[in-house]
């Protein structure tokens, strides 16, 4: 009993700690070896200098980075006004696909057709079609702005995906909950509002985080119809300087946003799994 009182740990715990330390050391050294190998072996490749000059050119990076960061603000803005609208439209479509009343069956068909079409069509086609097509019908300025219609294209496409995720959340709430709500005298809309949605939405938040991350990158597709956001700005720099480093700079900016967001989504998912088990 002496060893137990000394550290307050059992022999089993001490053994497990030792195992954990050992695996940490092994993992650390193998990672170091791989990183060092990459750092030393890649520069030994015959074409490295050329690749470094055109992809990892520090001077170009420093020169173009402020401009890229400024252009990225446009991405952020587009993202900021699209995301809430996507959430609202996505939820509405999901609810439309969930209506139980026979009279509202056309709504279900409409919802299904909507998700089928906008998930099936490439985003870039939607962006072109809506971004150039609708203004081409003869809308006056400023209503023909590529910002408005390009954003609408993103909203329509992403709402289709988001709606399907919401729907999976709604369907994951057990039928017995609806029955229970009904027996308590809640109306159908109150059942959805107070019983189903609070559970459904919470369950799909990690999956929706992934949609946000995807949207954040797809905002760059708006550059095809004119707005000079980070991707287009990087392309302009690339042509001017005949160097691909600006794209690397853009990637760095994207990663600075997406990696924390991805980690956060992972954390939410892990937390949810812990709570459920």
């Amino acid at each position, binding site marked *: 009993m002496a060893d137990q009182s000394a550290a307050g740990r059992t022999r089993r715990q001490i053994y497990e700690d030792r195992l954990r330390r050992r695996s940490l050391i092994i993992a650390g050294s193998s990672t170091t070896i791989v990183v060092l190998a990459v750092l030393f072996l890649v520069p030994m490749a015959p074409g490295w200098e050329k690749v470094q000059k055109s992809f990892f050119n520090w001077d170009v990076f420093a020169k173009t980075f402020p401009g890229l960061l400024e252009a990225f603000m446009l991405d952020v803005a587009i993202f900021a006004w699209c995301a809430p609208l996507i959430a609202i439209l996505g939820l509405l479509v999901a609810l439309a696909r969930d209506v139980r009343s026979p009279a509202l069956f056309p709504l279900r068909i409409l919802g299904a057709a909507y998700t089928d079409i906008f998930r099936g069509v490439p985003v870039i086609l939607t962006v*072109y079609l809506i971004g*150039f*097509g609708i*203004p*081409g019908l*003869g*809308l*006056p*300025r400023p209503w*023909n*702005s*590529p910002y408005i219609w390009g954003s609408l294209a993103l909203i329509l496409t992403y709402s289709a995906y988001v709606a399907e995720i919401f729907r999976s959340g709604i369907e994951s709430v057990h039928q017995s909950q609806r029955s229970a709500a009904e027996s308590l005298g809640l109306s159908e809309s109150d059942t959805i509002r107070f019983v189903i949605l609070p559970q459904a939405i919470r369950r799909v938040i990690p999956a929706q985080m992934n949609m946000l991350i995807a949207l954040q990158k797809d905002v760059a597709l708006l*550059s*095809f*119809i*004119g*707005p*000079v956001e980070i991707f*287009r700005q990087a*392309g*302009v720099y*690339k*042509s*001017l300087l005949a160097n691909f480093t600006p794209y690397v700079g853009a990637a760095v900016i994207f990663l600075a946003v997406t990696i924390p967001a991805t980690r956060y989504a992972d954390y939410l998912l892990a937390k949810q799994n812990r709570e459920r088990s």
Partner: protein
Amino acid sequence: MKTTSFISIVFALSATSALAGGHCAAGKTLTEGKLTIATGNPAYYPWVMDDSPESGEGFEAAVAYAVAAEMGFAADDVVWVRSSFDEAIQPGAKNFDMNMQQYSITPERDEVVDFSAPYYSAPMAVLVVGEGKNAEATLEGLKGLLWGAVGTTTAVPMLTDLIQPDSDPLLYGDNADVTAAMQAGQIDAALFDLPTALFLSAVMIEGSSILGQFPADRSDNPDQFGMLMEDGNPLKACVDEALAALTDSGALAEIEAKWLQDTTGVPLID
């Protein structure tokens, strides 16, 4: 009629072959004493007027006769043939001494065919639609327009450095997208090189017009047109010499002003 003109050509041939005898081009052309020049089928305004290069009307037709004269050929000794664009840039023997149909000189093409010195540097031109048509053709007048351009071309630095528009320009991936944005009324004006702008305004974008063109030396690395010749054609030295003489004398610039500024009605923006 046909026979008489043929006979007159034969006479002209015999008369001028003596004239060309001491000249650079002697013995280097497809047919001795004649200069065979190819153009497109059909050839377009403003490069060749009314698809008849024999008239010497139109920029390329005029340049062709000026070069021929400089090389010692009389106008009657210039023979026109037609060729398709793609057929002429393929390697192999040619049925012409030189071919003029707005061939841009590129290193890739230069591997399989020869180009003369450039006879034209395509300047940047301003294509406008809608509101843009009311703008003045001055740098000041251009600032207020909503601009578009292809993001990967040198039109972008020209826009941001020279014109400095009041609102940020919209940039696109290629000419087709700029065209679509113009048709959708999302931009008033766009920068293209003049030949592209002429084509777009005539064929592609209804209701568009060309407001003006910048001097060619304003664009960095402009598209340059050269006369296309068979690879290794000895005539190249003579053609280059003639073009250099025409450039120095200002004759080439005069032809350009006549056919690509006055005739097209595209004024110079300075």
